[in-house]
Protein backbone atom coordinates (compact mmCIF):
# COMPACT_ATOMS: atom_id res chain seq x y z
CA UNK A 1 0.00 0.00 0.00
CA UNK A 2 1.36 3.40 -0.96
CA UNK A 3 1.45 6.17 1.58
CA UNK A 4 0.64 9.80 0.98
CA UNK A 5 1.54 12.49 3.49
CA UNK A 6 -0.69 15.56 3.39
CA UNK A 7 0.65 18.63 5.16
CA UNK A 8 -2.21 21.11 5.63
CA UNK A 9 -3.43 23.22 8.54
CA UNK A 10 -7.00 23.65 7.32
CA UNK A 11 -9.32 20.92 8.61
CA UNK A 12 -11.80 21.31 5.75
CA UNK A 13 -9.09 20.75 3.16
CA UNK A 14 -7.85 17.71 5.06
CA UNK A 15 -11.39 16.37 5.14
CA UNK A 16 -11.68 16.77 1.37
CA UNK A 17 -8.50 14.84 0.71
CA UNK A 18 -9.47 12.21 3.28
CA UNK A 19 -12.80 11.65 1.52
CA UNK A 20 -11.16 11.75 -1.88
CA UNK A 21 -8.74 8.97 -0.95
CA UNK A 22 -11.29 6.93 1.01
CA UNK A 23 -12.19 4.63 -1.87
CA UNK A 24 -8.64 4.31 -3.18
CA UNK A 25 -5.72 2.04 -2.30
CA UNK A 26 -3.66 4.92 -0.91
CA UNK A 27 -2.97 5.26 2.77
CA UNK A 28 -3.16 8.80 4.12
CA UNK A 29 -0.99 10.34 6.83
CA UNK A 30 -1.52 13.94 7.94
CA UNK A 31 0.50 16.72 9.47
CA UNK A 32 -0.81 20.16 10.47
CA UNK A 33 2.17 22.50 10.13
CA UNK A 34 5.46 22.75 8.24
CA UNK A 35 7.69 21.55 11.05
CA UNK A 36 5.45 18.59 11.86
CA UNK A 37 5.29 17.86 8.13
CA UNK A 38 9.05 17.56 7.86
CA UNK A 39 9.23 15.39 10.99
CA UNK A 40 6.40 13.14 9.78
CA UNK A 41 7.98 12.76 6.34
CA UNK A 42 11.28 11.66 7.83
CA UNK A 43 9.47 9.29 10.17
CA UNK A 44 7.07 7.51 7.79
CA UNK A 45 8.98 8.03 4.49
CA UNK A 46 5.83 8.44 2.40
CA UNK A 47 5.67 7.60 -1.30
CA UNK A 48 4.29 11.06 -2.11
CA UNK A 49 3.86 14.32 -0.26
CA UNK A 50 1.09 16.87 -0.75
CA UNK A 51 2.31 20.13 0.67
CA UNK A 52 0.23 23.24 1.24
CA UNK A 53 2.14 26.52 0.95
CA UNK A 54 0.63 28.62 3.74
CA UNK A 55 1.38 26.67 6.89
CA UNK A 56 2.01 27.62 10.53
CA UNK A 57 5.57 27.45 11.91
CA UNK A 58 7.25 26.75 8.57
CA UNK A 59 5.97 27.46 5.06
CA UNK A 60 5.41 24.63 2.62
CA UNK A 61 8.17 26.07 0.44
CA UNK A 62 10.71 25.96 3.29
CA UNK A 63 9.53 22.49 4.30
CA UNK A 64 10.01 21.30 0.71
CA UNK A 65 13.53 22.74 0.62
CA UNK A 66 14.32 21.03 3.91
CA UNK A 67 13.03 17.66 2.72
CA UNK A 68 15.07 17.91 -0.47
CA UNK A 69 18.21 18.27 1.67
CA UNK A 70 17.47 15.02 3.52
CA UNK A 71 18.64 11.80 1.89
CA UNK A 72 15.45 9.93 2.91
CA UNK A 73 13.14 12.38 1.11
CA UNK A 74 15.44 13.84 -1.56
CA UNK A 75 13.65 11.85 -4.29
CA UNK A 76 10.09 11.69 -2.88
CA UNK A 77 7.57 13.29 -5.24
CA UNK A 78 6.31 16.50 -3.62
CA UNK A 79 3.20 18.14 -5.03
CA UNK A 80 2.90 21.66 -3.69
CA UNK A 81 -0.56 23.16 -3.43
CA UNK A 82 -0.01 26.83 -4.04
CA UNK A 83 -2.11 29.40 -2.39
CA UNK A 84 -3.70 31.05 -5.34
CA UNK A 85 -2.84 31.31 -8.99
CA UNK A 86 -0.50 34.03 -10.17
CA UNK A 87 1.01 34.73 -6.78
CA UNK A 88 4.48 33.62 -7.84
CA UNK A 89 4.42 30.68 -5.43
CA UNK A 90 4.59 28.19 -8.32
CA UNK A 91 8.06 29.36 -9.25
CA UNK A 92 9.18 29.36 -5.62
CA UNK A 93 7.86 25.84 -5.14
CA UNK A 94 9.75 24.51 -8.16
CA UNK A 95 12.92 26.30 -7.08
CA UNK A 96 12.59 24.69 -3.65
CA UNK A 97 12.56 21.28 -5.32
CA UNK A 98 8.86 20.46 -5.71
CA UNK A 99 8.01 17.87 -8.33
CA UNK A 100 4.96 19.85 -9.38
CA UNK A 101 2.33 22.22 -8.15
CA UNK A 102 -1.41 22.63 -8.23
CA UNK A 103 -3.02 26.02 -7.71
CA UNK A 104 -6.00 26.48 -5.45
CA UNK A 105 -8.87 26.42 -6.02
CA UNK A 106 -8.31 22.94 -7.35
CA UNK A 107 -10.84 20.30 -8.11
CA UNK A 108 -10.46 17.19 -5.91
CA UNK A 109 -10.84 14.99 -8.99
CA UNK A 110 -8.00 16.85 -10.71
CA UNK A 111 -5.84 16.43 -7.62
CA UNK A 112 -6.53 12.70 -7.57
CA UNK A 113 -5.59 12.57 -11.25
CA UNK A 114 -2.28 14.28 -10.53
CA UNK A 115 -1.58 11.91 -7.64
CA UNK A 116 -2.29 8.87 -9.81
CA UNK A 117 0.07 10.17 -12.47
CA UNK A 118 2.93 10.70 -10.03
CA UNK A 119 2.24 7.58 -7.99
CA UNK A 120 0.25 4.82 -9.68
CA UNK A 121 -2.23 3.34 -7.25
CA UNK A 122 -1.18 -0.27 -7.61
Amino acid at each position, binding site marked *: MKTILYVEDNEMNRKIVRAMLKNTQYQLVEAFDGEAGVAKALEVKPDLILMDVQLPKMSGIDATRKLRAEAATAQTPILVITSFA*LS*GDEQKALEAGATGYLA*KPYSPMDLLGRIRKLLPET
Partner: protein
Amino acid sequence: MSHELRTPLNAILGFNEMLLGEVYGAVPKDMQEPLTDIQTSGKHLLRLINNVLDLAKIEAGRMELALGDYSVHDTVGSVHATLRLLAADKGLEFVASVPDDIPLACGDAGRITQCLMNLAGNSLKFTKEGRVEIAVAQRNGTLTYRVSDTGIGIPPEKIGNLFTEFKQTDATIASEYGGTGLGLSISKKFVEMHGGRIWVESEVGKGSAFIFEIPLRVNS
Protein backbone atom coordinates in the same frame (compact mmCIF):
# COMPACT_ATOMS: atom_id res chain seq x y z
CA MET B 1 -8.03 38.87 2.92
CA SER B 2 -8.07 36.93 -0.33
CA HIS B 3 -7.15 33.71 1.45
CA GLU B 4 -9.92 34.14 4.01
CA LEU B 5 -12.56 34.66 1.33
CA ARG B 6 -11.50 31.90 -1.01
CA THR B 7 -10.64 29.09 1.37
CA PRO B 8 -14.17 28.35 2.59
CA LEU B 9 -15.57 28.64 -0.91
CA ASN B 10 -12.92 26.26 -2.13
CA ALA B 11 -14.08 23.77 0.50
CA ILE B 12 -17.73 24.17 -0.53
CA LEU B 13 -16.85 23.54 -4.17
CA GLY B 14 -14.58 20.63 -3.26
CA PHE B 15 -17.15 18.80 -1.12
CA ASN B 16 -19.87 19.43 -3.67
CA GLU B 17 -17.73 18.13 -6.50
CA MET B 18 -17.13 14.95 -4.52
CA LEU B 19 -20.86 14.59 -3.83
CA LEU B 20 -21.45 14.89 -7.56
CA GLY B 21 -18.59 12.49 -8.23
CA GLU B 22 -20.38 9.99 -5.94
CA VAL B 23 -17.42 9.72 -3.59
CA TYR B 24 -19.95 9.54 -0.73
CA GLY B 25 -22.23 7.10 -2.53
CA ALA B 26 -24.75 7.11 -5.35
CA VAL B 27 -26.57 10.40 -5.95
CA PRO B 28 -30.34 10.05 -6.50
CA LYS B 29 -31.38 11.33 -9.92
CA ASP B 30 -33.49 14.20 -8.58
CA MET B 31 -30.53 15.53 -6.57
CA GLN B 32 -28.16 15.77 -9.48
CA GLU B 33 -29.62 18.99 -10.80
CA PRO B 34 -29.53 20.97 -7.53
CA LEU B 35 -25.99 19.75 -6.86
CA THR B 36 -24.95 20.87 -10.33
CA ASP B 37 -26.62 24.23 -9.67
CA ILE B 38 -24.63 24.60 -6.45
CA GLN B 39 -21.44 23.94 -8.40
CA THR B 40 -22.33 26.43 -11.14
CA SER B 41 -23.28 29.15 -8.67
CA GLY B 42 -20.26 28.46 -6.48
CA LYS B 43 -17.93 28.80 -9.44
CA HIS B 44 -19.65 32.02 -10.42
CA LEU B 45 -19.18 33.36 -6.90
CA LEU B 46 -15.52 32.35 -6.99
CA ARG B 47 -14.99 34.24 -10.25
CA LEU B 48 -16.71 37.24 -8.76
CA ILE B 49 -14.53 37.13 -5.65
CA ASN B 50 -11.38 36.73 -7.74
CA ASN B 51 -12.33 39.67 -9.91
CA VAL B 52 -13.28 41.91 -6.98
CA LEU B 53 -9.99 41.09 -5.27
CA ASP B 54 -7.99 41.75 -8.43
CA LEU B 55 -9.73 45.06 -8.90
CA ALA B 56 -9.22 46.07 -5.27
CA LYS B 57 -5.54 45.24 -5.60
CA ILE B 58 -5.21 47.24 -8.79
CA GLU B 59 -7.00 50.22 -7.29
CA ALA B 60 -4.85 50.14 -4.17
CA GLY B 61 -1.81 50.23 -6.46
CA ARG B 62 -0.61 46.88 -5.12
CA MET B 63 -0.95 44.94 -8.36
CA GLU B 64 2.36 44.41 -10.09
CA LEU B 65 2.96 42.79 -13.42
CA ALA B 66 5.19 39.72 -13.50
CA LEU B 67 7.06 40.63 -16.67
CA GLY B 68 8.88 37.99 -18.63
CA ASP B 69 9.39 36.63 -22.12
CA TYR B 70 6.38 34.79 -23.45
CA SER B 71 5.27 33.16 -26.66
CA VAL B 72 2.24 34.80 -28.25
CA HIS B 73 1.47 31.50 -29.99
CA ASP B 74 1.40 29.59 -26.70
CA THR B 75 -0.63 32.27 -24.92
CA VAL B 76 -3.33 32.42 -27.58
CA GLY B 77 -3.15 28.64 -27.97
CA SER B 78 -3.90 28.05 -24.29
CA VAL B 79 -6.90 30.40 -24.36
CA HIS B 80 -8.18 28.68 -27.48
CA ALA B 81 -7.71 25.24 -25.95
CA THR B 82 -9.50 26.26 -22.73
CA LEU B 83 -12.55 27.72 -24.49
CA ARG B 84 -12.74 25.34 -27.43
CA LEU B 85 -15.25 23.01 -25.80
CA LEU B 86 -17.52 25.87 -24.78
CA ALA B 87 -17.55 27.02 -28.43
CA ALA B 88 -18.20 23.49 -29.67
CA ASP B 89 -21.10 23.10 -27.22
CA LYS B 90 -22.73 26.18 -28.71
CA GLY B 91 -21.97 25.10 -32.26
CA LEU B 92 -19.80 28.14 -32.90
CA GLU B 93 -16.77 28.31 -35.14
CA PHE B 94 -13.85 29.34 -32.96
CA VAL B 95 -10.58 30.30 -34.61
CA ALA B 96 -7.25 31.57 -33.39
CA SER B 97 -4.81 33.01 -35.88
CA VAL B 98 -1.32 34.11 -35.01
CA PRO B 99 1.22 34.85 -37.76
CA ASP B 100 4.22 32.52 -37.70
CA ASP B 101 6.77 35.31 -37.66
CA ILE B 102 5.77 36.96 -34.36
CA PRO B 103 8.91 37.29 -32.25
CA LEU B 104 9.16 36.47 -28.56
CA ALA B 105 7.14 39.03 -26.61
CA CYS B 106 7.76 40.46 -23.15
CA GLY B 107 4.89 41.12 -20.75
CA ASP B 108 2.85 39.43 -18.04
CA ALA B 109 1.64 36.30 -19.84
CA GLY B 110 -0.74 35.38 -17.00
CA ARG B 111 -2.51 38.74 -17.14
CA ILE B 112 -2.61 38.79 -20.95
CA THR B 113 -4.15 35.32 -20.82
CA GLN B 114 -6.71 36.66 -18.33
CA CYS B 115 -7.58 39.54 -20.71
CA LEU B 116 -7.98 37.18 -23.67
CA MET B 117 -10.05 34.76 -21.58
CA ASN B 118 -12.32 37.64 -20.54
CA LEU B 119 -12.75 38.93 -24.08
CA ALA B 120 -13.10 35.59 -25.84
CA GLY B 121 -15.32 34.31 -23.01
CA ASN B 122 -17.59 37.34 -23.51
CA SER B 123 -17.70 36.82 -27.26
CA LEU B 124 -18.67 33.18 -26.88
CA LYS B 125 -21.29 34.16 -24.34
CA PHE B 126 -22.92 36.82 -26.50
CA THR B 127 -22.79 34.93 -29.79
CA LYS B 128 -25.56 32.52 -30.64
CA GLU B 129 -24.42 31.57 -34.09
CA GLY B 130 -21.51 32.21 -36.37
CA ARG B 131 -17.95 32.61 -35.27
CA VAL B 132 -15.54 33.97 -32.72
CA GLU B 133 -11.98 34.75 -33.67
CA ILE B 134 -8.83 35.67 -31.81
CA ALA B 135 -6.35 37.27 -34.18
CA VAL B 136 -2.97 38.77 -33.47
CA ALA B 137 -0.89 41.17 -35.55
CA GLN B 138 2.43 42.81 -34.95
CA ARG B 139 3.71 46.04 -36.44
CA ASN B 140 6.56 48.34 -35.48
CA GLY B 141 6.95 46.86 -32.03
CA THR B 142 3.21 46.93 -31.22
CA LEU B 143 1.15 43.80 -30.68
CA THR B 144 -2.52 43.95 -31.52
CA TYR B 145 -4.86 41.34 -30.07
CA ARG B 146 -8.30 41.34 -31.66
CA VAL B 147 -11.23 39.25 -30.43
CA SER B 148 -14.17 39.47 -32.79
CA ASP B 149 -17.55 37.79 -32.94
CA THR B 150 -20.80 37.63 -34.86
CA GLY B 151 -22.81 38.18 -31.69
CA ILE B 152 -25.58 40.54 -30.56
CA GLY B 153 -23.44 43.68 -30.79
CA ILE B 154 -23.46 46.71 -28.51
CA PRO B 155 -25.56 49.87 -29.04
CA PRO B 156 -23.33 52.96 -29.50
CA GLU B 157 -24.76 54.69 -26.41
CA LYS B 158 -23.69 51.77 -24.21
CA ILE B 159 -20.11 51.54 -25.41
CA GLY B 160 -18.86 54.38 -23.21
CA ASN B 161 -19.88 52.53 -20.05
CA LEU B 162 -18.57 49.11 -21.03
CA PHE B 163 -15.26 49.27 -19.25
CA THR B 164 -16.77 50.52 -16.00
CA GLU B 165 -17.25 48.11 -13.12
CA PHE B 166 -20.55 46.23 -12.94
CA LYS B 167 -21.81 47.84 -16.15
CA GLN B 168 -23.17 45.14 -18.33
CA THR B 169 -25.39 46.89 -20.83
CA ASP B 170 -28.50 45.96 -18.93
CA ALA B 171 -29.67 43.82 -16.07
CA THR B 172 -31.58 41.36 -18.24
CA ILE B 173 -28.39 40.66 -20.16
CA ALA B 174 -26.65 39.83 -16.90
CA SER B 175 -29.40 37.40 -15.95
CA GLU B 176 -29.49 35.75 -19.37
CA TYR B 177 -25.77 35.61 -20.04
CA GLY B 178 -24.25 35.59 -16.58
CA GLY B 179 -20.86 37.15 -15.96
CA THR B 180 -19.47 39.27 -13.21
CA GLY B 181 -19.54 42.68 -14.86
CA LEU B 182 -15.90 43.12 -13.90
CA GLY B 183 -14.00 41.32 -16.66
CA LEU B 184 -13.75 44.28 -19.00
CA SER B 185 -12.68 46.81 -16.40
CA ILE B 186 -10.00 44.43 -15.12
CA SER B 187 -8.84 43.75 -18.67
CA LYS B 188 -8.61 47.48 -19.31
CA LYS B 189 -6.48 47.98 -16.22
CA PHE B 190 -4.13 45.14 -17.17
CA VAL B 191 -3.76 46.49 -20.70
CA GLU B 192 -3.01 49.96 -19.34
CA MET B 193 -0.46 48.54 -16.91
CA HIS B 194 1.29 47.16 -20.00
CA GLY B 195 1.30 50.68 -21.46
CA GLY B 196 -1.41 49.82 -23.95
CA ARG B 197 -5.01 50.67 -24.77
CA ILE B 198 -8.21 48.74 -25.35
CA TRP B 199 -11.28 49.64 -27.35
CA VAL B 200 -14.33 48.17 -29.00
CA GLU B 201 -15.85 48.32 -32.47
CA SER B 202 -19.40 47.07 -32.65
CA GLU B 203 -22.59 47.05 -34.63
CA VAL B 204 -25.90 45.90 -33.16
CA GLY B 205 -26.99 42.62 -34.69
CA LYS B 206 -23.71 42.11 -36.54
CA GLY B 207 -21.15 41.61 -33.84
CA SER B 208 -18.34 43.17 -31.87
CA ALA B 209 -14.58 43.33 -31.91
CA PHE B 210 -12.57 44.01 -28.78
CA ILE B 211 -9.08 45.13 -29.59
CA PHE B 212 -6.10 45.81 -27.41
CA GLU B 213 -2.67 47.04 -28.33
CA ILE B 214 0.36 46.63 -26.13
CA PRO B 215 4.08 46.97 -26.79
CA LEU B 216 5.64 43.78 -28.13
CA ARG B 217 8.25 44.14 -25.43
CA VAL B 218 7.19 45.87 -22.23
CA ASN B 219 10.16 47.39 -20.40
CA SER B 220 10.43 46.54 -16.74
